[in-house]
Structure formats: C-alpha cells, structure tokens
C-alpha cells in the first residue's frame, strides 16, 4: 500500500497537523511502509468473526445522577494558554 502525496496532505489536514512541505515525502514513505506491514491482515479470512472493541464482552457500569463536582475554574484556567473573564480565548471563529 502506498499513499499519495495528496493523501498524506489530506490526512494531515483531517488530523490538524502542520507538516512542513519538505517533510511530506518522508511521511509518505514511512506511512506507506507501515500500511504495507498492516496489510498482512488482509491475508486472513475473517468472515463471520465478531469484531472485538474491548477485552471484555461486558456492559458498561452506570453512575447515579448526582452532582459531585464543584467549581475549580481558577485551578483549571491557571494552566490555560489564554483566558479572559472566565472564558477560554481562541482566534475568531467564523461561521
């Protein structure tokens, strides 16, 4: 399996990763190698095999509807890159 330059750029965009123009070829070859290794999977017939997303075939546990958290804004926002008036700031969102 080999990825095209375009595909690498598209994936990087989807994942919001800035990849330098000069590095695209390197990622292209590395990712292609990994995918080639991964494609050994296709040799196995898995028809009718139930996918396994978790080690246990169990149901999830639920919690009671109780408010257990109190305001910790100050402590949480102390580690934020940019805040004002209790809000996280980001460059203008244009819809």
């Amino acid at each position, binding site marked *: 399996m080999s990825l095209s330059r375009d595909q690498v750029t598209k994936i990087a965009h989807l994942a919001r990763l*800035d990849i330098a123009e000069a590095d695209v070829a390197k990622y292209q070859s590395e990712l292609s*190698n*990994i995918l080639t290794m991964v494609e*050994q999977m296709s040799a196995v017939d898995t028809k009718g095999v139930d996918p396994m997303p978790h080690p*246990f075939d169990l149901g999830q546990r639920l919690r009671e509807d109780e408010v257990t958290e109190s305001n910790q804004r100050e402590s949480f926002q102390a580690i934020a890159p940019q805040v004002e008036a209790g809000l996280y700031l980001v460059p203008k969102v244009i819809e």
Partner: protein
Amino acid sequence: MHTLSIAEMAEGLRAKKFSSVELTDAFLARIAKFDKQLNAYVTVTADQARAEAKKADQRRTKGEDGPLLGIPIAQKDIFCTRGVKTSCGSKMLDNFIAPYDATTVAKFNQAGAVMLGKTNMDEFAMGSSNETSFYGPVRNPWNTKTVPGGSSGGSAAVVAARLAPAATGTDTGGSIRQPAALVGITGLKPTYGRVSRYGMIAFASSLDQGGPMAPSAEDAAILLRAMAGFDPLDSTSMDKAVPDYAAQLSASIKGLKIGLPKEYFGEGLDGAVAKVIGEAIEQLKKLGATVHEISLPNTGLAVPTYYVIAPAECSSNLSRFDGVRFGYRCKDPKDLHDLYKRSRGEGFGAEVKRRIMIGTYALSAGYYDAYYLKAQQLRRLIKNDFDEAFKKVDVIAGPTSPSVAFNLGEKTADPVTMYLSDIYTIAVNLAGVPALSMPAGFANKLPVGLQLIGNFFDEGRLLNVAHQYQLATDWHRRIPAEFA
C-alpha cells in the same frame, strides 16, 4: 539502603533502623549522583518527597503501618500528579501542571508512599526505545550506549540503577515488559481493567494498563496490591476484589503446566536470548513445573492488528491537545485553523504524528472496514488463541523481547523495524490478559527477560511463579556495576 527490597525497607522503618526521610534522602542523593548518565527522570520532586517522607514518619509514629508507608517510588510521567508537571514525554505538555491526581497516584499517596519524581518515557507512550521523548533518550544502566526499551524506559532505568526502589509503568503493547526485560527487572502488565486508567494519559484506551516495575516479583506484588482495584471514575475498571498477592507468593509451583508457544521461539529470536530463555525454563522445570508445546497461531498478526487499533484510538485520544485549554499553543496563530495545526504540528514529535496519521487514515471514510473493522476481527482471533491455550496450560512462557537492548539510534530510521521489537508482547494487550517479564540471565552482557503470560485476573499466579524462580536465582538482585 538502596539494595534492600521493599519488604526489607518496610521492616527497617518498622524497626526504626532508618526513617522514611533518611531513606528518601538516600535515593535523592543517588538520583543527584547518577541520573545525569541515564536521563531517566523528567522531574525530581525532592522537596515534596522530603515533605511526604516526613509525613509518613509522623503517620508511623502515630501507630500507622503499611507495606508502602514511607517507601519511595517513582511515577511514570504519564500519571497526572496534582501540582507537578505531567509531561507525557511531550513538548505538548511541557508546561502542563496537572490539576488533579490520577487514581493510581492517589492510592499510593494514601498508602503513604513517597514520590521521588516523574520518569522519562517515549512521547505519549509511543515507542519501544525511549528515543521519542521530548526530553531526550533514556540510557540503559547496563550499557549507556544502548536503549532501556520503552515506553516506560525511565521507570525501568531508575529501578535497574536503584534510583528508586520501584516505579509505575504503563503497558499498551509491551511498554512495561519490554523495558523491564531490557534492563533486568520485574515488570507486570495486569489484566485490562485491573488497575484504574483514570488520570493515566490515554494512548490507546482499550489496550492501556498501568502496572508495577520493581526488582523482584515480591516487590511488584506489594505495588500491585496498592494500585489494583475498582475505580468508579473508570467505567472499564473491574469491580473485582483484589487478592493479597504477597500471600500467594510462597505456594509451590509443583505440577504447574507451562505452555511454550512455538511461534515465540521461531525465526527472529536472537540465538543468545533463546539460550537464556531455555535455561530459565529448565529452572522452572526443576521447581516442579511441566512444559508443553502450544500454539498461538495468530501471533504473526498481532503487530499489524495492533498498528491499526492503537493508532486509531490514539488519533482520537490526542485530539484534545489543541492549544485551547492546556498544553502547548503555537505563537501568534493567524486564525483558528492555524492555531490547531501549528500547536499540534509543533507540539507533537514525529512518531506521535505518524501514529495519529495512520489512525486517522484507518478510521476515515472508505477505509474503516478494511482497516479498523478488520483489525477488530483479528483481535478476536488473537484472543481466542489465548482462550484455547489456557484450556491446556496454567501459564505461557517465552521471551519478552526477541533481542537484548539495542544501540541508541539503531532502529530509529525505520519505524516498522522498531514496531517488530514488540512482537512477543503485543498480543497480550490485544487479548487483555496479564503478563510479566522477569530477569532470566544475560546475553552479550545485557539482561534477558522471560515473559510469563496468565489467564484473566491470574496476576497472583504469575507473581507466584516469578517469585519461586527468584528464590532459586539471583538475576533480579544484580545491579549494574557503575550504579552499585
């Protein structure tokens, strides 16, 4: 003092031979003296450690006791520690002072353990050599030109060089066991769901599991007892009683059925490593175990399967690192898109980016079935192999790693070669079963690890087998001469 086992340290504290402050100072002094050579700690919390040690001594004066009260340990820098930088080995979190404690950290605090510092690791636990860390590679105490393995390479190195009596690690595809093998210590990956994942920065949520790293199985048993247990904050944690692992150590292993998977002894296994593993198995036989050849037919598929599932989960888990609420933010973003892609592009290292991209691709429209779904199906086949095997044997034994520690830089050029160094450890995470690695001897003057794989929640048996082996051998007591 640094050569004592945890049980011996606790005995010393009880007998007032030394205080926790003295014990802690002894280790802090060793760290100050030796860590420059290893680069194993990202953060040393000396002041906090002394304060905690003092508190532990006071608790003891008031009549409290406990197997970890006043015992220093190191935490892998993947566990959130309130008020202390939690970097996950990444530039992305170089400025991240965690505002809360991971459940594991809280449990150690409660038990009165003293945190010496946070250990270096592959960035976001992605790596098998500790070379992907933003803080530079960790070196193997047995030969500082070689790697300590990864991703819990820092924890492995500090335990091997006795810069901490024990440490925590996390294991997604071998990240406790492979470094434990490469530095000659005992490391256990528990059953998935045995140890809470809350506050342990996620790499691949359905595979990640925290566990102990210590010189001996006896020490590891004490740590696991403290770490394990149900956590209401982690809905994948299992509500199952935690046995007294230490109490199970002394049982005889006479009649124990050990399975040797033929796939773990074939092509790709270094001859010198194979020889050491063979001797270790002979030793287990001497202790009364019987050996049976078994097959885990889908072993060869574990690495490809893993490199779809783990990247897919990580691509999503790492989306929260976006420069908005915490962590690295790029300088002068010109718009929102620029903020995202440069914060992430600059904050993550190459291996993390590769895996995010692989995972993004595997989940994207048109590829999901061929990659992600297929991998989930193979995952079941791999798990079925273990289910079948455990119908015949009690534990499975084999090498942890196909080779001893390799040189720094030796495998960084080709990611796939690096990935294959986890060939014997990865299937265990896919299946969810527990496994440990223990020191079994040396090849080319470097440690070799024997891996023991158990059935679900059979950690007690793995520790028991390892302990019985360690009663008969002294590999786990060896300390690299430079750090003696």
